[in-house]
């Protein structure tokens, strides 16, 4: 369910109402209700894809049970379970890409045998629920958790509607205990915090990200028609757009979870205040970077190995991250870019900031630029287009003029940006101030009413899409 859609506005209050109408003594009944709701909402996208979700759930559920019951052959079961769990993802997401690359390679030696590409849409959230399910099997293998014996509980963990579309990729150790018994009937503070998160997430999405998106789409879709300054501005706006879009979604997902009494994994921690690319990945899409650390980086040897082996492990981890984001060379280059910068930072000992405030500001700025240029590869459809945008930015022959959209669009962009920047600065550097702001009811409510009003007045409410929903 897309959170900025009308469907959400209608469905969520109903889900909330019916969920809390089930008396607390029927804990299982509440889980069954959420399971049914999650599947209905998933079926709403494309009914047949619910079978894939069910299939991945079934495979990983049985694999985990088998691993636990037969430790002797646990490794074989793990490998089979992971491969089977990954098949739908590989098939739907990467078939066309692999097919095209193989065809191109074979063409070079004169073999021209082409398989037809798939015209099927990729099942929504497949990258997220597949990684969540595989992570669970791995955790059982590593004895971090016990295998879940109740299929309904496990199925709800995988299909839980707030996070199935775009994460966070939750750990079984966090969610399954909450599903089983460790959540109260109704937690007032949690519910209020959840609503606040939904409100702020919605603001980030519709007021900031989607407004920036109007400018970004205009410029980057026809970048050849714009100056380098405009292309640079569009790339910076895209950097803000993707943050507002994805962090906004994650906040809403976590907020919805909280209103229902659940704690989900934190996914963003003001990433553009990172002092290095390494630090950036401790703040950006935290649930994915944790997953990659736990199930790719550490199994490869992590940092407890030789220096060069460690660099290789970082490189491979971010190559996987790039591939996970999409079947396109642009994502692979984006992943490699991030991996290489982290290796360089490690070589130079620049992962943290040991300088004063000026040094910190410089490091934040340079990290922002590094990340910003990487996003160009992420945004553009081909490597040629990405290089085209970058070469325009550095083309000194072009005039230094800036394309400014209508005055209202520019005003809303600046307004949204200022508000988000103000909150992020306070959260990052003056957290105590935020607590003081939040104490008087009139100030708290005033702020929330202002945000809601801005959503209604300045939000781009026609766009029911999230960038990360494509992954």
């Amino acid at each position, binding site marked *: 369910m897309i959170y900025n859609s009308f469907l959400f506005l209608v469905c969520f209050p109903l889900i909330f109402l019916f969920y809390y109408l089930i008396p607390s003594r029927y804990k299982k009944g509440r889980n069954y209700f959420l399971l049914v709701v999650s599947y209905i909402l998933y079926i709403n996208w494309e009914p047949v894809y619910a079978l894939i979700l069910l299939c991945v759930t079934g495979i990983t559920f049985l694999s985990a049970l088998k691993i636990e019951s037969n430790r002797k052959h646990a490794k074989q079961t793990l490998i089979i379970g992971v491969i089977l769990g990954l098949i739908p993802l590989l098939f739907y997401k990467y078939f066309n890409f692999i097919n095209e690359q193989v065809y191109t390679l074979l063409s070079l030696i004169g073999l021209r045998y082409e398989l037809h590409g798939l015209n099927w849409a990729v099942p929504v959230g497949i990258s997220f629920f597949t990684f969540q399910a595989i992570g669970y099997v791995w955790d059982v293998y590593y004895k971090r958790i016990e295998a879940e014996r109740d299929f309904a509980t496990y199925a709800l963990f995988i299909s839980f509607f707030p996070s199935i579309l775009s994460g966070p990729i939750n750990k079984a150790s966090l969610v399954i205990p909450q599903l089983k018994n460790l959540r109260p009937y*109704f937690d007032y503070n949690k519910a209020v915090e959840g609503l606040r998160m939904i409100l702020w997430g919605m603001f980030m999405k519709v007021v900031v990200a989607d407004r920036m998106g109007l400018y970004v789409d205009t410029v980057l879709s026809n970048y050849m028609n714009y*100056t380098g300054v405009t292309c640079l501005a569009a790339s910076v706006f895209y950097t803000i757009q993707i943050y507002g879009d994805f962090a906004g979604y994650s906040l809403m997902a976590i907020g919805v979870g909280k209103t229902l009494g659940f704690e989900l994994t934190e996914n963003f921690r003001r990433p553009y205040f990172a002092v290095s690319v390494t630090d950036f990945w401790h703040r950006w899409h935290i649930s994915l970077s944790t997953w990659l650390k736990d199930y790719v980086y550490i199994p490869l040897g992590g940092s407890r190995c030789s220096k060069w082996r460690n660099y290789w492990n970082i490189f491979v981890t971010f190559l996987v991250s790039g591939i996970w984001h999409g079947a396109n060379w642009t994502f692979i280059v984006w992943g490699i870019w991030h991996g290489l910068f982290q290796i360089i930072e490690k070589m130079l000992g620049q992962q943290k900031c040991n300088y004063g405030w000026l040094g910190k500001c410089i490091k934040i700025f340079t990290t922002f630029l590094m990340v910003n240029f990487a996003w160009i590869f992420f945004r553009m459809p081909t490597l040629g287009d990405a290089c085209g945008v970058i070469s325009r930015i550095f083309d000194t022959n*072009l005039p230094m003029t800036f394309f400014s959209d209508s005055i209202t669009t520019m005003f809303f962009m600046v307004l949204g940006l200022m508000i988000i920047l103000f909150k992020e600065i306070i959260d990052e550097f003056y957290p105590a101030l935020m607590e003081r702001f939040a104490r008087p009811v009139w100030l708290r*409510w005033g702020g929330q*009413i202002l945000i809601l*009003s801005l959503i209604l*007045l*300045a939000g781009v*409410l026609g766009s029911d899409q999230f960038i990360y929903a494509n992954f």
Partner: protein
Amino acid sequence: MKRFVIRLLSFLAIVLVLDRGFGLAMKYLQNHAKGGYVGHHNYILHYANEDILIFGSSRAIHHYNPQIIEDCLGMSCYNCGQDGNGIVLFYGWWQMIKERYQPKMIIYDVNPSFDLLLGEDNSKYLGWLRSEYDNEDVKKVIEDIDPTEKCKMLSMMYCYNSKFLQNIIDYVHPLFKISSNGYLPLMGEMDKMKVRERKEKTKYVFDSQKLKFLELLIKETKERGIKLIFVASPIWYGKTNAQFEPLCDLCNKQGIPFYNFSNDTSYVHHNEFFKDGNHLNAHGANAFTSDFIRCIEQQ
């Protein structure tokens, strides 16, 4: 839970009161706009009484000089063009205009992206219509595009979504004055930065909803004896006829004239007539308006 529900309802009640207050203030500002796009919108819906009305996107507002049309045809003319809009908005506006008076002629500048081709979402054309939701016919158009608008329109702030700043500016100090006949000429030379040869598609997907509104506009103007003329004004790049196919079929069937200047060699790639790849400058607009009027006169 009780405390949560009470607080939530109190919060929503405050928002509701503010929403109504804001809506009323916006309505006042809109109705008293001194100029700009809001003033233009008010004039078209509530005061226009010209013999000829020109409908269309920015390519209409910048391409047709009503003064030339008035001088040649001896009829009064107003340019109703609106940036980034097409048949969805103009069919809605037409619903309000026809209640008030009957023009003699409507010139419709067709832009395939806004009037014929399937785009992402037609609700983006509803911006200027939402504030007129009280009108039953406009309401039907809005709900036809998106049935959920019925619920969304409960919020008056939503009615002015993305428009409130424009309302304030056009009430306090409009940044530009649209001339008394609606025309907004583009001054200056061709900005070569903004043109690039485009690869035209070979296959187009058309929007049945847009075509339905075009058909309704043809039907309603025909019933009232209003002369409707479709025009595709010049474009620097030139355009393939394939993009206009369903409109050509409609016009042939209904006996409506359609003048296509989009591939006219006296304009295509002639930098002196253009401001950018899509828009004529004032010099180009004057030349085109004269050429177009000659075509009408010859008929």
